[in-house]
């Protein structure tokens, strides 16, 4: 189990140190600083073993977050916990940086008391934590005053709720308008050869729900998952899925929020749950098949002379013409001995950024089934050693209003037997956002 937790700034000074178990000494934080933060060689492994003590670290901005243990713990569990901790802190005081941490010492220590007990992870759900760690982050001081202190009644309720069966939702929530928002957020990762062959591609997606529902409603979520649909088809008629008329997708793996009843998912492949109040992540999934790639990058690199080369990049958008992609940014790496660049592009703005050794081409938006082009002339300085340039891939960032995996929300039904509102009264919103992860094309 986790023996202690440290937060360092970029210089390696300890900001927060919380020790949960006796087997971790005070000098453990020095050991990590010396061997990892100030290491001569950049330490790439997130897990470091120093003197029979394991250090699990992750870096957010300029802040090092490090969990320590002497035992043989489940490393994935520790990292899951560290990520949760970051999430919790972000929801309390926004961006994680040295200043915010220094301003929220008391809050962070209170959080650390709550999320870990003798090194065992406890409640890490932001919604629940916010019910009893009422200290607000410094940034929202005014809000706290507006909300006012909680009544005694509410505080007694917290105990029963946190220890009860449904820990993520308290009873007696009431909304005038029953409303829910569903976001399907996906990030597409791609590696493509210069000839346009897909070397690897996958989509990592999340379904995020924001619910404002009264009482203790039971929800049922349906999507075009192949397994679910096939099962449904089998039950009704034995024809193929064409009968339903909609394409279905194959999900490689998925994880659910704790509110989802896993037993029902196992037996009926149906996703039913009592939602947490407010925003939460309902599920996470990954797909690798039949991904619709929103953009295609076609690079053309030519060495003109010993000290000159020409780069031409064509970008084609590959989705419905009615949709608009946004925040498009294409990054074309330049050789290390570049001494000057002339760029020419029809659309958007392009600039040579010397500090990043790349040409960055930005476009505000681009409609589907369009094509755009940039050409650049790069001047090179002859070098002492003829080192071959490694030609890093061209990368791209964008945002599109559909799910590249093809996932569709089929339904989200809400049942609340005790209060008298039904499915039709609930206002539901669904939104699809596809973003780029590592979207690269070799040149």
């Amino acid at each position, binding site marked *: 189990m986790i023996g202690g937790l440290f937060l360092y700034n970029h210089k390696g000074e300890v900001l927060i140190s919380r020790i949960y178990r006796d087997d971790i000494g005070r000098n453990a934080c020095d050991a990590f600083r010396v061997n990892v933060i100030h290491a001569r060689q950049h330490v790439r492994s997130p897990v470091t073993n120093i003197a029979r003590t394991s250090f699990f670290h992750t870096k957010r901005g300029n802040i090092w977050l490090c969990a320590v243990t002497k035992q043989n713990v489940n490393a994935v569990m520790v990292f899951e916990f560290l990520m949760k901790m970051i999430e919790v802190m972000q929801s309390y005081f926004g961006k994680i940086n040295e200043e915010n941490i220094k301003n929220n010492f008391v809050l962070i220590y209170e959080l650390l008391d709550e999320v870990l007990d003798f090194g065992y992870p406890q409640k890490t759900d932001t919604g629940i934590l916010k019910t009893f760690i009422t200290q607000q982050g410094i940034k929202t001081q005014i809000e706290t005053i507006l909300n006012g202190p909680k009544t005694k009644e509410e505080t007694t309720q917290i105990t029963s709720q946190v220890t009860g069966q449904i820990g993520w939702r308290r009873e007696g929530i009431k909304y005038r308008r029953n409303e829910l928002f569903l976001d399907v957020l996906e990030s597409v990762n791609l590696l493509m050869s210069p000839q346009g062959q897909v070397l690897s591609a996958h989509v990592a997606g999340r379904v995020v729900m924001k619910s404002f529902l009264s009482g203790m409603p039971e929800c049922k979520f349906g999507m075009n998952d192949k397994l679910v649909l096939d099962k449904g088809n089998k039950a009704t008629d034995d024809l193929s899925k064409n009968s339903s008329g909609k394409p279905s997708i194959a999900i490689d793996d998925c994880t659910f929020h704790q509110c989802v009843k896993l037993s029902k998912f196992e037996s009926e492949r149906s996703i039913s749950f009592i939602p947490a109040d407010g925003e939460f992540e309902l599920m996470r999934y990954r797909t690798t098949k039949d991904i619709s790639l929103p953009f295609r990058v076609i690079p053309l690199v030519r060495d003109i002379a010993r000290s000159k080369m020409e780069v031409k990049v064509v970008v084609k958008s590959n989705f419905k013409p009615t949709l608009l992609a946004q925040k498009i940014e294409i990054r074309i790496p330049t050789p290390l001995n570049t*001494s000057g660049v002339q760029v020419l592009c029809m659309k958007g703005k392009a600039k040579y950024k010397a*500090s990043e*050794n790349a040409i960055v081409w930005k476009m505000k938006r681009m409609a589907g089934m369009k094509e755009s082009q940039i050409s650049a002339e790069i001047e090179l*300085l002859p070098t002492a050693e003829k080192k071959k340039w490694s030609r890093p891939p061209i990368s791209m960032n964008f945002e599109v209003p559909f799910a590249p995996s093809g996932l569709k929300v089929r339904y989200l039904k809400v049942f609340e037997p005790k209060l008298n509102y039904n499915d039709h009264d609930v206002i539901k919103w669904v939104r699809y956002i596809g973003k780029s992860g590592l979207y690269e094309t070799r040149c």
Partner: protein
Amino acid sequence: MPTVSSRGDAMRGLAVFISDIRNCKSKEAESKRINKELANIRSKFKGDKTLDGYSKKKYVCKLLFIFLLGHDIDFGHMEAVNLLSSNKYTEKQIGYLFISVLVSSNSDLMKLIIQNIKNDISSPKPVHVNLALHCIANIGSAEMSEAFGQEVPKLLVSAHASESVKQSAALCLLRLIRTLPDAMTYAEWASRVIHLLNDQHMGVVTSAASLIHTLSQLSPGDYKGCVSLAVSRLSRIVTSTYTDLQDYTYYFVPAPWLSVKLLRLLQCYPVPEEPAVRGRLVECLETILNKCQEPPKSKKVQHSNSKNAVLFEAINLIIHIDSEPNLLVRACNQLGQFLQHRETNLRYLALESMCLLAGSEFSADAVKKHRETVINALKTERDVSVRQRAVDLLYAMCDKTNSEEIVAEMLAYLKKADYAIREEMVLKVAILSEKYASDYTWYVDTILQLIRVAGDYVSEEVWHRVIQIVINRDDAQGYAAKTVFENLQAPACHENMVKVGGYILGEFGNLIAGDERSSPLVQFNLLHSKFHLCTPSTRALLLSTYIKFINLFPEIKQTIQNVLQNDNQLRNADVELQQRALEYSQLSSITSQDVLATVLEEMPPFPERESSILAKLKKKKPASVQAIEKEEEKMKKSPPSIENHVNVPKEVPANTNSVDLLGLSTPPATPQQSTNSLLVDVFGSVDQPVAPKPESNISKSETAGSVDPEAAQNKSNLLFSRFLFKNSGVLFENNLIQVGVKCEFKEHTGRVGLFFGNKTGNQLQNFSASVSMGADLQGKVNIAPQKEAPTQIDGGAQVQHFVNLECITFFSGSPNLQLRYQHASTPQQVTLKLPVIINKFMEGTNMPAADFFNRWKQLGQPVQETQKIFQANHPIDTEAAKTKLTGFGMSVLINVDPNPDNLVGSGIVKTKTSQIGCLLRLEPNKEAKMYRLTVRSSVGEVAALLCTMLEEHF
């Protein structure tokens, strides 16, 4: 020198860039800033633009800074080279700096750079010359030394070069010589370089001293003249007061570095011959010693450090001279004061120097006065390295008079000594106690105590050595057995103690068996109680002890046999233990008591050799032993300590495997089930598997069906001829029987062991083996079989037969061995030559060259000499020939013949009636592949015979 930061040279851009980088919050920000700067510089360096010298310098500076931050720089070299041709000092300086840091020695630009340096070297401005010289030294490649190997010395000795140029030139030359020491000889410059020691400018002298030191190590002859100059320079420095050498006085010490360098330089040469120079040198050294007595002029540590640096170097020189008793004693007294100094470093240095002083005959006694202090240092010193030095010194100052005390102190200290130095201390204690032992009871006590105190650190060599000494010394044996027995009674004793105990009781247990308290059974039970706690190698040793006990004490035979036949032994997982247990139990049950007594005879004394412990210590610490060796040489001159009169064996079996200590190569006659080359197994004892191998290969390939007696005879002749050079091996082999021989010769007597192995599955009946002599041998050699030869050999079995020999007078030829046996009811007969040849009775003698030539001349009569010239049968190889001659019985004399290819040997044939000296000379002619062999002997026949025997074998 012009200052770097004059106005306009400030390079604001560089300052801004550096402060930008210092302000970066993260690594990423830093590399971004650097990338930006690099792009900027690249765009500036683009071919079509021309930059002025200032901006070039600035950008090159930035590149240098980026490089020093750990980033690769692969451009800008050309710009840096351009800077070299600038006239401004600062621009040139940055250019040279960049080149010495960044340009690799195999760059294409090197030619350009060298050209630029050449220009600068011949420039009239001394600062430019200096920059060029620094660059040459910084690059210091072979190419540089080729290009400037001639230029730099010119500068060094030129009349109008300024002092700073000379100084730089000297150091630059030093660097070039270190890169390519062989390429350059500066003999023609020697006298002028030496005279730099007389230069007015102290800086030039200092750098020249370093240069001359290196040069004089390379070619001492050419620079001999520097000694007197160095002495006079040294005396001038030493006698000057600190106000005389203003810039070169460091904390009131005049020119300490130069003094140290001069003192080191003087250590390269022997003591000057001329009395005047010598007197002056002694005077200098005395002055240095005197100065140490003066009260310090400053309390600063720098003052005392520099003063002591000079002093220690002076003491080193005194030790090097080693002929001024007065100085040596004074140095020793001075060091004695340092022994109790507060500074740890001083104590260390004092002990180290004293170690050297202890080796000198004049100061040895003075060193010994400090024994108490050193012992005290050992006990109270906090620093382990100083303690180590103290141990070294104690070891070095030990002699007959104080050995007991020093050994006792070291033993006492061993208990709490640091682990790192324990093993070394153990070796030292072992050596000292052996070397200075006045009586052996003390020696045995000391070593046993050593094992008790630091058993883990006692190496094999140490306990092997005790056993050797005890075996070679009759008077120590009883005492050793008693003490070992007492020591073993301790409830927990170290395994090494068990080893020593097992061995000594096995050999000499009978000496203490008379006492009730140490009766045979008690001894056995005591050893056996330790058996189960020991490692397999010790157990193996103990098993051998047990079989020896059966021999020594027949009354406990039954008890021991029970132990040997216990399943724990007979079915042990360790093959060695299993085999020993099996063989020993068979040996004890099958053979009679007198066979047992022969097999398990008391070990013969070990031959003398260099102490293996000393060899081990030498391997560990080559330096520290030298002093001891000097000591040892002295010892040999002085009346012999016990070491000499005892005829102490200095031998540990070549192979440290404890198995061999017991001489197990004499095989017990146990039936073995090997089918083919069973004899080979016997001779292939652990330590000499190589020798018999070739025979076994031959035998295997030919065993198929060689019934043809002719072939067998030829083969046996071939095998016989090999015995000219060795004493054991397979003499004869056919598909029925294999005959092995193992001979031992000592002076005019010898013993031949014959091993008959039956290779068939059936019994060989009516077996008989008889040794007969031809008429020519009658009365010259006496032969007496030790026992009757066996009459039959079981299938697959092996029997042995021993024959004793005595050489009465010179003989030629060799006795015959007749074997008769019946196989499958067909009688067979084989006649073999026994490898008893006259050269077996020859012993090599060593003599110096002069003696050899004297004797050679004395044997000048034509009768006494035989000379043969013959074709070489084998490739001419001096080493192989040497080995052959040594095997033949001659000792090969080294450094006698001026031609190293020629071999010269001498030996004495010892017969009962007379001793015949033989001298030999073998001269190869490599072109013609011929040898000329000349043998001279006091008896002409011998010379002729030896010559004939050797002829075919080269």
